[in-house]
């Protein structure tokens, strides 16, 4: 019986709960690229060398070796860029949308997807001000919202913040190296 209970517990622990949408992508786009009415998808197909460089920098490679940035503009005025980054955690994937100003600083970061299990942790982290420390960061900076919210959030919210930090770091590294440094 002990063996069966252990196996059942292990199976439950290993079972990743389904992913739910916390913020719809269009809503994240409206928030992070305010006022934009025209958009361009900029797909950067990384060479082996560049993919390796990115992996060395942030321990991450984009799916299929393709980074997709979205640029927004209002008329002839650039509003900024946006990238959706996936972070795989032991509790399942998170998706973080990171928006940039035309000057290349972070305008904001929004967790758009999480697993059912992580959703309350994300909501607690957001309530504790998860998004605030990211604003104004430039490529090369080290995001650390986990430390910033540690005094006003529980351990699991801080854990999620640490995972979101990874997502923002990946977005910063990608944006800094590849957003407008590659010829079309």
């Amino acid at each position, binding site marked *: 019986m002990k063996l069966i209970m252990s196996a059942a517990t292990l199976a439950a622990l290993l*079972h*990743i709960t389904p992913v739910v949408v916390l913020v719809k992508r*269009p809503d994240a786009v409206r928030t992070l690229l305010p006022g934009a009415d025209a958009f361009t998808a900029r797909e950067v*197909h990384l060479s082996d060398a560049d993919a390796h460089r990115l992996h060395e920098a942030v321990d991450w490679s984009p799916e299929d070796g393709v980074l997709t940035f979205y640029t927004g503009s209002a008329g002839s005025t650039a509003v900024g860029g946006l990238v959706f980054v996936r972070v795989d955690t032991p509790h399942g994937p998170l998706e973080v949308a990171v928006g940039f100003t035309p000057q290349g600083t972070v305008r904001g970061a929004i967790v758009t997807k999480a697993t059912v299990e992580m959703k309350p942790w994300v909501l607690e982290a957001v309530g504790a001000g998860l998004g605030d420390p990211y604003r104004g960061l430039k490529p090369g900076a080290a995001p650390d919202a986990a430390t910033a919210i540690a005094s006003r959030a529980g351990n699991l919210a801080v854990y999620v913040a640490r995972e979101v930090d990874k997502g923002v770091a990946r977005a910063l590294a990608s944006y800094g190296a590849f957003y407008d440094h590659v010829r*079309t």
Partner: protein
Amino acid sequence: MLYDLRRADVRIKWLVTALLATLGLSYVFGALMVALYAGFTPQHVAATYAGPEMAMPMPPETTVVVQHPMSMTDFDKPELHVVDTDLLIQDTHVHVPMYGIIAAALSVVVIGLSLSRRLSLGLIALLFAAPWFDFAGMWLTKFASPRFAIVTLAGGWAMAAGYVIVAVLAVHQMWLSKERT
């Protein structure tokens, strides 16, 4: 045979009925989950399990950029749920033991039904073969050909059919049959 659900104690009948109801509930939500994440057509299943890994695009020698305009509505398009190899390993590891236990539980019900030996053997084979087909189809779709998506669909429908056959026969023989006691 001593084990005959038609003549079993009412407590046994009630246990089997509760088991079938619980499994039925889980099957209904299993079907809803399939509808949400994989779909019920060979095309959807193939897209879910074959995914981009079938194409295996080679990375370019130098990094290149492709741009195209898009509208706000493009951001709202439903994303395809893709099961990569890692996730399929995990799914197989988690689901197959559970399917085995469910098939065994339903087989125990089958043994208690008044059926010919051949029909009982056939039903037990169906209960265990269905999940094998289900997962074999997923792996073959990923690594052999998207055409094997039909095997996964056949396995899924076979699981549903196996459950419905056992549940209908069991409920009929336990609670409705004239020969019951």
